[in-house]
């Protein structure tokens, strides 16, 4: 007993020996127990289920068909959904524009929907000073009342004309029509569309072809395309269509590949992938086109039948009793290859061979509209290019230039105008002081002109729809500055973009995936009409701008309310669609083996497949489309039979516009009338600015209103953007002259402004030219865009296009210096 007790106490006493025994025993025991192994396993399992790594909720997989309205390209999209969430956007394989594919922007669209950092989640009113982004939410009722009050007050003071609307909706969309109608109903002539090549295309169609609808190109059936700077692979026209067509042209199975010549100062994707790259000096494209015309005329390669029967102004003729030299003689005299070579930097041989190849092709088309075509074009260049098309006579036939036709939608009833409005509408709208072509060109720049130069035209209230002019106008920041001086700015943007940040009131629209909308696509070679449907229910307290306008009109009351005899946008769209049904033409189905271009080349139309209006409406409302492949193919006699509707090498319509214009552009030393395509060279001396800055656009960088969806940032190279610095491309030769190395920081300075960028040496850049990417330099949005790179628009606008009065953004004299 005693010894037992002793043993027991010995066992308990914490002497060194026991402690060690205990420790070793404990360690072995724990090691043998499952505890440590379980813990090790559990921690590993924990790393496989970290609580902050989301587990995407699953659900029923569905697909919603719709259209992408991010650009006027009208691609069909299919939104893949899981439960209520949209998880992917895919191209529609049953769509005539983009059978299957999409452009990167369309592909990244969900990040424009779900990124809450860029979205405007409810109506907002400004509380801080402008551009600081201090806003306060308010209810839709309050917001609409505030705007109604503002409009009513201006109207009662006889200042309805000082209300200005900038509309960035796709042209021909019902919302766009409603904005225009609203402006008219309240009594303002200041409905302004954003600049784009659509304006100049419409102008050239009217001035040379005498057509009220823009021309379009049947590129798919063409065998030779001479492109004057068109970014065919950079987002020009309808990108979904162009990229798809490019694949067809380049497919190994296709034996009738089109030959593509690209005129551009930089080895862009289009230039590199083209069969021939013609790097003419920037701003001399007109001369090149006329040089090619010169060769075609001198070598008698032009289509004589066509020129004789369907054109005017080619030969010597009499006008108003005075003998006038014709296009032929002026071109032959002034644009021989040697002189053009001096101007453009393109060898005479190349000019001659290009002319021969062009004129020798079966269905050659010359096209124009630089880059993506989202900015205004050079009207003179457009005219020169179309003169080439007229020389080959490849007009109004498959594979040629087609005279467009709008989809036969029903007209909305004319807006009603009351006394106040009609009084106010007598005052002219804002126009650029020296614009000859004000009817066709965007007058956005007139806002800045009138405010900054103070020429008496007043802007009191600015309504901004679906656009971000503070970022996109190539005017050296004039527009942005003028915003500060506008008393009241209302943005209808779904995003907190640069313009919205300057607004006093934001009435946020839905994004394109949350709403009903419709679009035409004027750049297509057939008429097309498509509708979007909400792919997801609106995420935030936003409203369709179409509905908001109807509600606003209702609140304003009187004739304004009467001008909107529909309760919703949908109702308005439906009433327009009736016309499509009534025309008994066109189809809503697409069969991959019968592409629109096949119909055009075969000359057979689609079988109309809409049985009743109800069915048609249902189909369209579910993201459907209507198209008529043969709409643009017309009887030649219909177009060119009357003398006034011949193709005009020397535009009588332009001539009368010039004569009517108060501000006549300076006359030229050459004996060339201003109303025919001509090249004058740079008027201004560029002293102090020895280099040229040319902005360039990329298909994987949103350069317009929208921020770049973050996924697209992955596809940008770090020689385009590195950290917060964007790069300009310059030729190694130019870099050597300035002692610049790859990645050096430089300051690019124009008469309008200065920017800090890095240098990327690129052999494909023309020496003496600084190429700056477009789309960087946002001062709004979130971490993915804010402060990244530099916006070339801030340097542009020093030159003005003499006919349109708009900034000649395609040519900016600059100087560069190494940043210290």
């Amino acid at each position: 007993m005693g010894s037992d007790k002793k043993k027991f106490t010995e066992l308990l006493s914490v002497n060194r020996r026991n402690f060690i025994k205990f420790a070793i025993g404990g360690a072995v025991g724990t090691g043998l127990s499952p505890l440590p192994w379980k813990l090790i396993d559990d921690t590993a399992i924990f790393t496989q289920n970290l609580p902050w790594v989301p587990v995407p909720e699953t659900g029923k997989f569905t697909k919603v068909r719709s259209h992408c309205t991010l650009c006027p390209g009208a691609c069909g999209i299919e939104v893949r959904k899981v439960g209520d969430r949209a998880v992917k956007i895919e191209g529609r394989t049953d769509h005539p524009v983009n059978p299957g594919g999409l452009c990167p922007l369309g592909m990244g669209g969900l990040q424009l929907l779900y990124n809450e950092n860029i979205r405007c989640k409810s109506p907002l009113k400004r509380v801080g000073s402008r551009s600081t982004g201090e806003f306060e939410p308010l209810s839709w009722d309050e917001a609409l009342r505030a705007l109604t009050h503002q409009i009513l007050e201006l109207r009662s003071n006889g200042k309805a004309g000082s209300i200005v609307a900038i509309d960035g909706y796709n042209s021909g969309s019902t919302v766009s029509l409603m904005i225009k109608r609203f402006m008219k109903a309240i009594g303002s002539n200041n409905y302004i569309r954003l600049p784009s090549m659509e304006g100049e295309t419409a102008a050239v169609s009217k001035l040379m072809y005498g057509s009220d609808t823009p021309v379009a190109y049947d590129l798919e059936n063409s065998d030779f395309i001479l492109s004057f700077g068109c970014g065919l692979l950079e987002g020009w026209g309808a990108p979904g269509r162009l990229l798809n067509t490019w694949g067809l042209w380049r497919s190994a199975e296709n034996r009738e590949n089109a030959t593509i010549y690209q005129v551009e100062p930089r080895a862009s994707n289009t230039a590199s992938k083209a069969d021939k790259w013609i790097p003419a000096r920037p701003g001399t494209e007109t001369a090149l086109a006329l040089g090619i015309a010169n060769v075609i005329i001198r070598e008698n390669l032009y289509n004589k039948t066509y020129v004789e029967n369907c054109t005017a102004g080619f030969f010597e003729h009499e006008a108003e009793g005075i003998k006038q030299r014709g296009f032929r003689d002026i071109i032959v005299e002034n644009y021989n290859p040697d002189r053009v070579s001096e101007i453009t930097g393109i060898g005479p041989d190349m000019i001659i061979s290009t002319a021969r190849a062009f004129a020798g092709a079966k269905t050659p088309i010359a096209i124009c509209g630089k880059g993506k075509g989202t900015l205004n074009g050079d009207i003179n260049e457009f005219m020169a290019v179309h003169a080439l098309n007229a020389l080959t006579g490849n007009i109004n036939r498959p594979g040629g230039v087609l005279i467009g036709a709008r989809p036969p939608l029903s007209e909305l009833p004319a807006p009603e105008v009351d006394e106040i409005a009609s009084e106010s509408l007598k005052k002219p709208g804002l126009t650029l002081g020296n614009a000859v072509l004000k009817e066709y060109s965007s007058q956005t720049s007139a806002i800045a002109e009138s405010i900054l130069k103070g020429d008496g035209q007043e802007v009191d209230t600015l309504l901004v729809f679906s656009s971000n002019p503070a970022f996109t106008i190539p005017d050296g920041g004039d527009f942005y500055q003028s915003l500060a001086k506008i008393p009241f700015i209302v943005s209808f943007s779904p995003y907190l973009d640069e313009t919205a940040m300057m607004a006093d009131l934001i009435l946020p629209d839905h994004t394109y995936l949350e709403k009903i909308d419709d679009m035409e696509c004027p750049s297509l070679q057939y008429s097309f009409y498509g509708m979007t449907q909400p792919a997801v229910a609106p995420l935030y307290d936003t409203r369709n701008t179409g509905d908001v306008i109807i509600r606003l009109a209702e609140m304003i009351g009187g004739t304004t309310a009467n001008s909107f005899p529909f309760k919703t946008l949908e109702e308005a769209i439906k009433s327009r669609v009736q016309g499509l049904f009534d025309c008994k033409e066109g189809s809503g189905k697409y069969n991959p083996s019968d592409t629109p271009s096949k119909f055009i080349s075969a000359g057979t139309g689609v079988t109309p497949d809409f049985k009743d209006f109800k069915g048609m409406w249902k189909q369209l409302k579910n993201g459907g489309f209507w198209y008529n492949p043969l709409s643009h193919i017309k009887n030649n006699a219909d177009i060119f039979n009357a003398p006034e509707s011949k193709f005009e090498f020397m535009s009588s319509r332009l001539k009368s516009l010039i004569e009517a214009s108060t501000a006549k552009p300076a006359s030229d030393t050459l004996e060339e009338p201003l109303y025919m395509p001509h090249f004058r060279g740079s008027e201004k001396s560029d002293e102090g600015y020895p280099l040229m800055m040319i902005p360039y656009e990329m298909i994987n960088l949103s350069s317009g209103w929208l921020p770049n969806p973050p996924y697209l940032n992955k596809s940008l190279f770090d020689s385009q953007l590195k950290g917060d610095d964007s790069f300009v491309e310059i030729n190694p030769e130019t870099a050597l002259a300035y002692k610049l190395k790859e990645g050096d920081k430089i300051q690019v300075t124009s008469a309008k402004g200065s920017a800090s960028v890095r240098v990327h040496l690129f052999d494909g850049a023309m020496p003496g030219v600084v190429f700056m990417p477009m789309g960087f330099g946002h001062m709004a949005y979130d971490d993915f865009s804010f402060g990244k790179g530099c916006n070339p628009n801030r340097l542009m606008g020093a030159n003005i296009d003499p006919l349109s009065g708009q900034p000649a953004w395609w040519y900016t004299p600059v100087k560069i210096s190494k940043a210290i």
Partner: protein
Amino acid sequence: MEKREGHDNKYGMVIDLDKCTGCGTCMVACAAENNVTVRADESDKERSIAWMQLYKIDNGRPFPDTEVCYFPRPCMHCDEDGRGGHHSPCVSVCVATATELDPHTGIVSQIYARCIGCRYCQAACPYHARYFNWWDGYSSFKPFSKGMERSLSPEVSPRMRGVIEKCTFCHHRLMRAKTKAYAENRRDLREYEYITACTEACPARAITFGDLNNPDHMVSRLIKNKNTFRLLEKLNTQPKVYYISSKEWVRKLADNYLPDQIKPVSGNDI
């Protein structure tokens, strides 16, 4: 399903560089399809993730003879050396068997939950097709989490930090297609029933996807083209991604050549 020896199917891809316009839609489609994370600074190319990566190349000639072209580079899904030599470069080195070459499909998989993040596979891959998650893609203060996680697909598990990820030839799409086929009582998939997201998205139709073991599939026909080549073919990694280019300088940039090793392709036809 009964198991057979060797590759039942050998999925592969042919990218026609003559058609490729370098637009980058494949990259965006891939990222959107596979829940790839985005960082605020995607210009940090060494650390950003792009399963499908676009490489811009040029012919190195001075103005005005410069020409650019693009190499879209997914995972090459390298295969065993037919001579019984080695395995795919990455599969053989992985310590935790987290990446495997599926003998039934030829697809090189990546098991995120098993990867320990040692990055040996990255070192072994000459194509830089493998990406490491240097960051937590989703923690609450990351810009990517600001609502954009709502577009995550439930078919692909989002990755945690510290693991390798790479192109899987959209393996979940194979599963999707198989499920559908089995439901319709079919054993074999039809051509194009299973295609990757990049193939589907390419607006120029430059990418063709299919079974290289099936002589009827377009890919099997395309790889017989004279202008078909693979990246770094000489290393004998046996990639299942092929390229077509009619341009000599592009083909030459696909591999390293000593002067006597270049075999010019005669003619540009099939």
